[in-house]
């Protein structure tokens, strides 16, 4: 089990760090549909907060590839961490 977790994490890191720069930049299904029906622009300026790494970019990194790759890497580890942390909390509550 441990082996599959570690290899799964390494694989995810490789995807997010090394492969994400090669992702297609075409609009996704919903964006394309919104473009076809001419309503894509109604979401402009509607964000009610500013996320720190909007568009999966570390804006403080200059390198155009690295700014996305580092954001991807951070996201992968953060998502793993948050589930692990929350899972342990639930586990502690279960045993009580």
């Amino acid at each position, binding site marked *: *089990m*441990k*082996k*599959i*977790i570690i290899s*799964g*994490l390494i*694989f*995810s*890191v490789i*995807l*997010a760090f090394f*492969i*994400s720069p*090669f*992702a*297609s*930049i*075409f*609009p*996704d*299904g*919903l964006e*394309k*549909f*919104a473009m*076809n*029906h001419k*309503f894509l622009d*109604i*979401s*402009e*300026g*509607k*964000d*009610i*907060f500013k*996320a720190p*790494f909007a*568009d*999966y970019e570390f804006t403080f990194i200059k390198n155009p590839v690295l700014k996305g790759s580092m*954001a*991807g890497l951070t*996201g*992968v*580890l*953060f*998502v*793993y*961490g*948050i*589930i*692990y942390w*929350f*899972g*342990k909390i*639930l*586990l502690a*509550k*279960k045993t009580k």
Partner: protein
Amino acid sequence: MHIPDGFLSTKTWGALDIISVLALSLAIFKTKNKIEDKKIPLAGVTAAFIFAAQMLNFPVLPGTSGHFMGGALSAILLGPWTGFLVMASVLIVQCFLFQDGGLLALGANIFNMGIIGSAGGYYIYVIFKKVLSGKYEKAAVFISGWLSIILASAACAIELSISGIVPLIPSIIGMGSIHAAIGIGEGLITVAVISYLQEVRMDVLELAKI
């Protein structure tokens, strides 16, 4: 398929925020009762993989891309409640850290991809596995991945129509047809991951599904 803020009417996102909060509470309650220590890292790595794979848009039609969603995969691996929680966690992180999907529309995105895509995908898998009488399990996995995307996109289409943006029928046909193509990628990736796990470590798939 992440809906940004501005697309949905207040009533629509408001109702879906309430539904998603209720569903999350129920899922946390259900998971808490049956959680096992060794399932926690598996849930974590599933979420990490989904997050990474969602960054990898692949071209599907001229000028259109799609990416893996992971709803069916997480629910087949972990069960409908935990799979839904994993999916919702990814969506919450994407919203708060990466501005992917609106904050007000977060409930709608959790509803579409978590409740419909993940928990729904699980039951599609269970039903097709039964229909195919345990044979052709890969077909059941593929159908689950493919349909989970189409159904999630149909839910999104209905929400856009309720919000008065696009009439219902063209909305469902438009969203459904694009996502029927994206769903093929979803089905193939889901089959690839499940088959790989069956190949290397059966016990991962034999943990209790919550």
